[in-house]
């Protein structure tokens, strides 16, 4: 909240910018039904305006849908009431003062649609209908603001907690040597998801408190290895990543077909990939070379028709170990 008010007097900080972008994002992520007020009160068209006024006062509301035979036919608001009061016409029926056939919004629409409506039309509230067109709620500008602020606060808190928990993992669990092992099964030919495992490993490292540089090096090395499993294996393979505060050990293995000449495979530019793979941007014969450049130690063993096992290690310098000894803020 303070960040928002401060933007008026101070130049915008990175944190402010981040919050604003997140707000825009939430406008697309949140659905209208998550922020709207569920309809508790509606009025009927033949009730008097006086009854509507009492209903507003009792319910502490500033507007209500007008429903006849279970169908939404209009909207009555405080402004209509004021109009009616100026005419000293409180005995009139609601149908005389209501807005007829009001513009509605769907409960499943993203909040950004509601924002657009509020900007383009000059109404203070819109009835919300479900996919069958039935009235389920009402949305005001206040609902929008409250919904987005709550969501912002919530997920800010969530990511903080996640990072806090993860970065303390190694301190909270006491042993002579603690490590975290993650395994990912990689399917042969699954180009659509190629890199998903590497992406998760990279994110885990950042949460555990690794420096962006360490996370990047590891990410690139594992990604190349993951693509190799997808491109070259008979049945896919496994990535096993073991994380310790001072080192990351990654083991990538499969059950065939194996590499005929490991030394040749390590040579820059050497590739057995076919044109399909090259069209996808891989198979230039640089994968293993890239891996070697990114890791501190690497061993490639392969037996024809039995499988290949690639072992790599990244050592973390003392001041960059993961967990409490490392402060993420120093680097990022």
């Amino acid at each position, binding site marked *: 909240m303070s960040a928002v008010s401060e933007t008026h007097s101070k130049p915008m900080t990175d944190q402010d910018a981040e919050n604003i972008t997140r707000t825009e994002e939430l406008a*697309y992520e949140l659905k209208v039904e998550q922020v709207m007020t569920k309809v508790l009160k509606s009025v009927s068209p033949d009730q008097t305006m006086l009854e509507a006024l009492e209903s507003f006062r009792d319910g502490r509301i500033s507007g209500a849908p007008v429903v006849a035979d279970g169908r939404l036919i209009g909207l009555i608001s405080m402004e209509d009431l004021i109009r009616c009061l100026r005419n000293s016409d409180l005995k009139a029926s609601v149908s005389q003062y209501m807005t007829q056939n009001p513009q509605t919004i769907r409960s499943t629409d993203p909040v950004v649609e509601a924002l657009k409506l509020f900007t383009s039309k000059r109404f203070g509230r819109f009835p919300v209908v479900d996919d069958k067109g039935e009235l389920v709620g009402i949305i005001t500008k206040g609902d929008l603001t409250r919904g987005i602020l709550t969501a912002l606060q919530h997920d800010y808190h969530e990511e903080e907690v996640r990072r806090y928990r993860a970065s303390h993992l190694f301190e909270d669990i006491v042993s002579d040597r603690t490590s975290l092992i993650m395994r990912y099964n990689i399917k042969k030919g699954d180009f659509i998801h190629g890199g998903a495992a590497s992406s998760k490993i990279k994110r885990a490292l950042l949460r555990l408190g690794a420096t962006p540089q360490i996370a990047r090096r590891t990410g*690139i090395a594992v*990604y190349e290895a993951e693509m190799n499993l997808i491109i070259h294996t008979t049945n896919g393979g496994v990535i096993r990543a073991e994380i310790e505060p001072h080192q990351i050990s990654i083991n990538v293995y499969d059950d065939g077909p194996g590499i005929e000449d490991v030394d040749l495979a390590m040579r820059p530019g050497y590739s057995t990939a076919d044109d399909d793979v090259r069209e996808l*941007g891989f198979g230039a014969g*640089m994968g293993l070379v*890239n891996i070697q450049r990114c890791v501190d130690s690497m061993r490639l063993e392969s037996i024809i028709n039995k499988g290949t096992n690639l072992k790599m290690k990244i050592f973390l310098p003392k001041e960059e170990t993961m967990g409490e000894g490392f402060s993420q803020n120093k680097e990022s």
Partner: protein
Amino acid sequence: MNVKELISLIDGKLLNPSADLTREVKGGCGADLMSDVLASIQPEAVLLTGLCNPQVVRTAQMADVAAIILVRGKMPARETLDLAEEERIALVTSPFGMFELCGRLHEAGLPSLERPVNCPTCDCD
């Protein structure tokens, strides 16, 4: 320059609304081979490419790329778009070709963030 300024410089069209347009772009890298990108690109670069599959976004994510520009008005596959949206990396399409784009960006002051082959002075980062 930031991603927003970059987009206006190349008549670009942003394809994923989740992208952070305030992100700083420090230089550029152009390639269609993702292994070349992974081998050479330095962090916070804009990646110019003609490749439109999801691997472009994955590569960008691994290599801390600030934005992706698809050359010659290419439109990505649905999966690519979804992944960019999820990872919040700006995915932009521009009507210009690779050479024209590199020229424009270079002229606007963006240096190359492609590491030369066998660069002796630097390690992976």
